[in-house]
Structures are given as C-alpha cells and as structure tokens.
C-alpha cells in the first residue's frame, strides 16, 4: 500500500509540473512537510545525485522514492517519472493527421525557429556553469564545430570531451 501511495504522491508532482525541478515544491510539501517520509537533507542529496549523473534533472524523483521506501520506492519513483511521457502520443496522433495543411505547416515552421532561439536561451546559463576557463571554452567550441559541421558520432564527441577534461587536470 505504501508503494502505491509513494507512486501516487510522486505522480501528482510530475503530472502538475512541466520540467525538471518544477515538481520540487509539490514534492517537498508532501514528502518532507506533510507525511515526513524524508528530510530536507535527503531531498537535497537526491537532487545533487541526479545532477551528477547523466539523464534528465527530473530523475531526482527516483532518489526521493528510494529514500521514502527503499529500492521498491525507487522503482515507484521511476514509474512516476515515465508515466506522464506517454501523454504525448494522443497529442501527436491529433496533430499528425493535420500536418499537411499550409497553416499547420507555417505554425510548425515558426515554432521550429522559436525552438532554435529557446535552445540558445537554455544554453546561456549552462554555458555560464560549464565555461570555467580556456580549456572548457576550447572543448565547447570544438564540440560545437564537430557537432554542427561533421558527421562524427555524438558519443565519441562526448567521450572525447570527458577525456579532454581529464587531460587538462592531469597536466
């Protein structure tokens, strides 16, 4: 019963937020203040751990589930994280049938250009955190050029960047 409860509490948080840490206020109110399933310190650790690893920031709900109910709780957290993603399928089905209409086409085109501007916008704070000196700036520039103008597999570009970071510290 507790597992279902943890899942539903986390699902409530993920369903009412639209990105990353936006679900945090709801989770804190439920898990820390109301039901006291974890402490503030544990919540912070879960967030820090999700930032250390790869994948979306929203992964911290797995850590929250883990603290609340052990490994089964982590599974409940994982399920609460992926459940809302399936909502996109009925939405795509609806739009997909109308994709050839000229107005729909121009709507998509304008949104595509706006997404390009939004990507630049999201890159600004990340760049502030990531560029700490000439080495990281060089890695950023090299990976941009490799991604934009070559067909090199993205994985190798990322692995190469990690190695470059290690090399800089070693030297």
């Amino acid at each position, binding site marked *: 019963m507790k597992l279902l409860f943890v899942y539903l509490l986390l699902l409530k948080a993920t369903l009412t937020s639209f990105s990353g840490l936006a679900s945090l206020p709801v989770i804190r109110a439920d898990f820390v203040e109301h039901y006291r399933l974890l402490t503030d310190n544990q919540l912070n650790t879960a967030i820090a751990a999700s930032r250390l690893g790869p*994948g979306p920031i929203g992964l911290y709900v797995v850590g929250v589930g883990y603290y609340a109910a052990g490994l089964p709780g982590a599974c409940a957290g994982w399920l609460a994280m992926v459940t809302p993603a399936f909502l996109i399928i009925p939405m795509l089905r609806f739009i*997909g049938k109308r994709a050839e209409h000229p107005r729909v086409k121009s709507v998509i085109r304008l949104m595509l250009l706006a997404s390009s501007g939004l990507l630049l*916008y999201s890159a600004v704070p990340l760049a502030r955190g990531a560029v700490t000196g000439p080495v990281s700036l060089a890695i950023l520039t090299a990976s941009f050029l490799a991604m934009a103008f070559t067909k090199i597999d993205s994985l190798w570009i990322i692995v190469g960047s990690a190695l470059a970071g*290690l090399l800089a510290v070693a030297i």
Partner: protein
Amino acid sequence: MVTVPTLKQLGLTYFRIGNTTFGGGVPTIAVLAREFDRRGWLAPEQFTVAYGLARITPGTNMLAFCAGAAWLMRGLAGAVVALAAVTIPSAILVVWLTRICEASGGNRWAHAAIAGTLAAAVGSMLAAALALARVHLTNRNWLSTALVIAIAFALAQFFNLSPISILGLAGVAGLFWTRL
C-alpha cells in the same frame, strides 16, 4: 528521405545518448535530434512537432520528447523501448550516486570528466540551434529567420517569458504569417 530503424537500433541509440549526455534534458534532446537526423530516421518537421508537444506535456519534457519521437519512428513499442533505454540505466545510477553522495564529498577526477562533458553539452545545444535554423533557410528568408530566432531568444532572456508561452506565440504568429 526517412528510413525506419529497427527496435534494436532505436533502443541502442536512446540507450547510448540518454545515458552519456550530462547537463539535463535539453542537451540530451539536442544530441538525440542530431543522431536521428544523421541516420535519416526523423524529418526536421517531425522533430519540431515532437519537441513542441513535449514542451506542453506534463512531467519531464525530455522523456515526453523521447516517447513522442520514438512513437513517430516505431509506434507504441518504440516509445516503450525508448523510455526504458533512456531512463532505467540512469535511474539505477541515481540510486547508486545517492548512496555515494551520502558517504563522500566529491572526487577530483570524476569532477574533471563531468566538466568536460558539460562543456560538450553546451556545444551540442548550439549545434542543434543552428541545425533547426537551417531547415527552411533560403537566400531570400535569412533575415526573417534570424529575426524570429532573435525575438524568441530575447523574449526568454530579457522578458522572462516561459518557453511554453513563447512557443505558443510563435504558433499563433504562424497562423497569420504564412509566407515567411
């Protein structure tokens, strides 16, 4: 020309990119988009629809994008495979990291490697922005293209408008401005 990947190819791509890209959802979407484009699995228009709708889907936007893009490529089975491939390994890692974080402060070498991948994540986002801008670029419309991108950027950066409302505004503008 769009080619259809096998479920195995699809799962492996999601697995590799989803679990090696640091810095959160947007860089992961950027790298995934590049891989789909490089392999000819997803047309730029399909990417935009999946990306735009992912923004307005509740929950983690990146996961909605993964599910949506995979559904366009391989249907419901593709969406399930994609979500599992992207989230299960990193979720296991998060549990493990949560335990480690409690025990220790931080390791210099791990920190250096992560710093390198974070810089690459920013590079990949810039490359993705350029790739999106190039989709409909011709000799005649480069100025209006740059203008739309600049306006979207400025609305987010200087006027604190949320990404969802900016995409919404762009959509409404597209209803009336059909000759870009």
